[in-house]
């Protein structure tokens, strides 16, 4: 029996189990593999073309948060390097089998308290200070918001209202650049969460509670947003666009959207299409201002053709996609609330002509 209380045979087995004293060739290969994986990762990052990145802010809100991230990232990397460095030194320096007393200086309660609590506390004070600083900056915009927009989250689309301008649209939030706007977030059925990574962090839309979020875009552009709180079967297809326009263009857009739909020319394709629309089940769910269609379950279609996307960012808005969506919405977005519409091909052409006329 040796000092471990093992027979020689057990000892040999044990040596087999614990392996060599260094990492060994297999381990070196593994480290190489890890390095390759990280290199591959870096390569991917360079190749990637992210359309919407938190790290590519386009407004003051997201910019503040990105700054906070870089501060925390730098501190985090420093902490990681120091802790891993200490660990490696702890493991690989020193004499094997040396006695407790000979094992170096950093072993007492003082070291543990200093490294484990005191220094981390100081670092956390910096992080918490930066957090509060950012939080206060984000609480109120620099100037009073010039515009209030109500956004209601539905399974699985966004209703967007400009109450003071009398405008209703869906899945698109138009805002003027260079000024803060206020979004009133309304939960219409289940909980959703509104998130435009390049403009702002997310805020939930909760039934029975109206949350308020301000945002601002520096430059004109289209910024993709999406639902970030699991809201059911089609949570993945509940996107929208924030379209930032120079103030004058934005005013024109508001004026155009405020108008009811145009009266179709008599005996035209469009007029036939309107009759088909008004005579179908469409009107139970959709509104077209200027007609008798006044359903409120689905998006307002008064200016459908002016919008960029269909089915809450699922499809580009064009004739072919619109046809597909009307005929078979359940295979495009299974489980959404829109039923298929059964129409002859001629009727469908007329209906499409009408819908595409709703500019």
């Amino acid at each position: 029996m040796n000092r471990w209380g093992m027979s020689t045979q057990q000892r040999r087995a044990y040596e087999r189990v614990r392996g060599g004293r260094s990492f060994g060739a297999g381990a070196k290969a593994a480290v190489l593999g890890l390095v390759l994986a990280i290199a591959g990762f870096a390569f991917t990052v360079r190749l990637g073309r992210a359309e919407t990145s938190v790290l590519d802010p386009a407004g003051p809100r997201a910019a503040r948060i990105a700054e906070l991230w870089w501060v925390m990232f730098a501190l985090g990397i420093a902490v990681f390097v120091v802790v891993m460095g200490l660990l490696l030194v702890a493991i690989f320096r020193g004499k094997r089998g040396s006695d407790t007393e000979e094992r170096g200086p950093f072993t007492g309660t003082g070291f543990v308290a200093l490294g484990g609590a005191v220094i981390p506390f100081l670092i956390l004070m910096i992080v918490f200070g930066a957090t509060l600083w950012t939080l206060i900056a984000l609480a109120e915009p620099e100037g009073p918001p010039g515009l209030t927009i109500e956004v209601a989250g539905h399974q699985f689309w966004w209703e967007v209202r400009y109450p003071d301008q009398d405008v209703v649209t869906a899945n698109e939030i138009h805002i003027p650049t260079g000024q803060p706007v206020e979004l009133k977030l309304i939960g219409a059925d289940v909980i959703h969460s509104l998130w435009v990574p390049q403009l702002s962090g997310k805020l939930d839309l909760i039934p029975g509670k109206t949350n308020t979020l301000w945002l601002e875009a520096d430059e004109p552009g289209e910024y993709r947003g999406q639902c970030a709180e699991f809201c059911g079967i089609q949570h993945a297809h509940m996107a929208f666009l924030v379209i930032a326009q120079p103030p004058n263009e934005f005013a024109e857009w508001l004026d155009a959207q405020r108008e009811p739909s145009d009266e179709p020319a008599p005996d035209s394709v469009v007029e036939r299409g309107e009759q088909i629309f008004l005579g179908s089940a469409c009107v139970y769910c959709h509104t077209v201002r200027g007609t008798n269609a006044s359903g409120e379950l689905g998006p307002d279609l008064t200016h459908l053709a002016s919008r960029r996307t269909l089915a809450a960012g699922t499809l580009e808005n064009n004739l072919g996609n619109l046809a597909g969506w009307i005929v078979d919405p359940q295979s495009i977005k299974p489980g959404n609330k829109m039923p298929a519409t059964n129409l002859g091909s001629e009727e469908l052409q007329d209906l499409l002509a009408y819908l595409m006329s709703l500019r």
Partner: protein
Amino acid sequence: MAAIPAIQTLTRTWQRPAGIIGWLSQVNHKAVATRFVVTALVFFVLAGIGALTMRVQLAQPNLNVLTPNAYNQLFTMHGTTMMFLFAIPVLEGVGMYLVPLMIGARDMAFPRLNAFGYWVFLLAGVSLYISPFFGNAPDGGWFNYPPLTSEDYSPGIGIDFWTTSITFLEIAALVAAVELIVTIFKLRAPGMSLNRVPLFVWAILVTSFMIVFAMPTVMLASVFLALDRMIGTHFFDVAAGGDPLLWQHLFWIFGHPEVYIILVPALGIISTIVSTFARRPNAAYTLVVLSLVSIGFLSFGLWVHHMFTTGLPWLGMSFFAAASMMVTLPSGIQVFSWIATLWGTRPRLATPMLWILGFFFIFVLGGISGVMVGSIPFDEQVHDTYFVVAHFHYVLIGGAVFPLFGGIYYWFPKVTGRLLSGTLGKWSFWLTFIGFNTTFLPMHLTGFWGMPRRYYTYPTELGVGDLNLLSTVGAFLVATGFGLTFVNMFASFRNGAEAGPNPWGAGTLEWSVPSPPPPYNFQVIPAVDNRFPLWGPAQRGPAPDVGTAAVSGVALEPEAERRVTAGTELLDADLDAKLVLAGPSIWPLLLAIAVGTIFLGALVSLWFVPVGAVLSYIAAIGWLWPRKTEWDE
């Protein structure tokens, strides 16, 4: 000191009755704990297969491997299984196996309760998994937020399975916790005062208290939701004055401590393995114990950081941000205690140690991203994105699964008497470690680039296809890595090298008994005068010639073939009483079935609730019916 009891008498008294009824009546802590661990590992594999399936669906944009319905059920079952059916039961199982051995007891304080807990766990787990045959599996996420999970928006039976099974299941977690607390407080070996309790046992003690306070809130919440759905109450119904945020508060008051309930036992495993391989006692023992306790307290003050995007007032939220960052400090104490313990010792890099080093790398990264998500404005960006998915897999897989696998390599020889293969172990570790980082490191970026969680697919123009493909490849590496350990376990169970009582030269009591331990654990209840009784004088390395029989102690002869162990005082562990523990019984199983009738029967008809209650009452009488021998005294 009485004469040393004969092994034959002890064996006769402690062995389980023969036959299938005997197997079902088994109450011994090692057998029950093994069942817990094996069952939990089966659930781990099932949830892992679910994860792989989801990764295939997400490998590229717009794939149709899974329908949205299937995907939503899969991620719900993945989270629910990993949190409720794997992490807690497996760690409680490890605790149940080791605690009596580490503190010098012959069994847990309430062996029948132990068995009851297992049967409840098994029934509740199986009921979740048979839900697809009755319509659909739960699909509201493991967090199950109303109003989405209300009758209006989720009319199927899946959510009902979730609410009833989870409530039922938590009974198992609660009874295990209560009995671990009593065992640790009252059944320690004479002389094992609280300041000599092994750190793993401290960790289990803290965890058990956390379970006692955390689980009732999730049971309460899920009962509320079940009532809303089944009999039309309005706890979460806005139209009738209810509040969906009430659910979130109740759920996360449970849900955040839950994370630490999973982490804390793992911290205990690490402290144990680190001191064994450093061949020295843990540095700053008292600080480490205090930090474990303070993690227990602090973890109940963090829940709002799961709700930073619900629009609560920011001043109130900032207190929770501060608390979320504070909890880093006790974790920091742990990490630096391990570094100090290892300092200058040139530890042997055996397989258990490799998993612990892997833990360090991953857990420190997860801790750092954890501080980040505790920062409210930053959390508003990354909340419910893949950044958070990356963060909590770093914390949970790095923080709990890596130490658990280290623990498997460390204690498998004790449980089976066989060593696991070191070569397979190293392959398993490196594949898992590399695969893990390949899967989850890119996810931080996937989140930054705008991919929210719980999306069954994503558009090409989001630009995250490559990152997702990388994650999918990594996931298969992880699965292969874990799989190798399972292969290792199967192969070594029969053909592994003989382990002997103490293959690692460890210092705690479980290594003083043969491997595998006899049903009565200790022939003689050991007497303890320091933290590492198998090592030489305190603060020294292992002493020579420590054999199985070298530990002196209290001999407790079975009286009239009853199971006796030492009862000791809470603080100083002075010998207090000779305790008689309950023996095998079929009633725990019958009671579990009767209580199951209440919960699972409610899915069919509410009439099963009173029927199950009456059956439970009868089963409890059967359980407590006095045996004839006990009347004699």
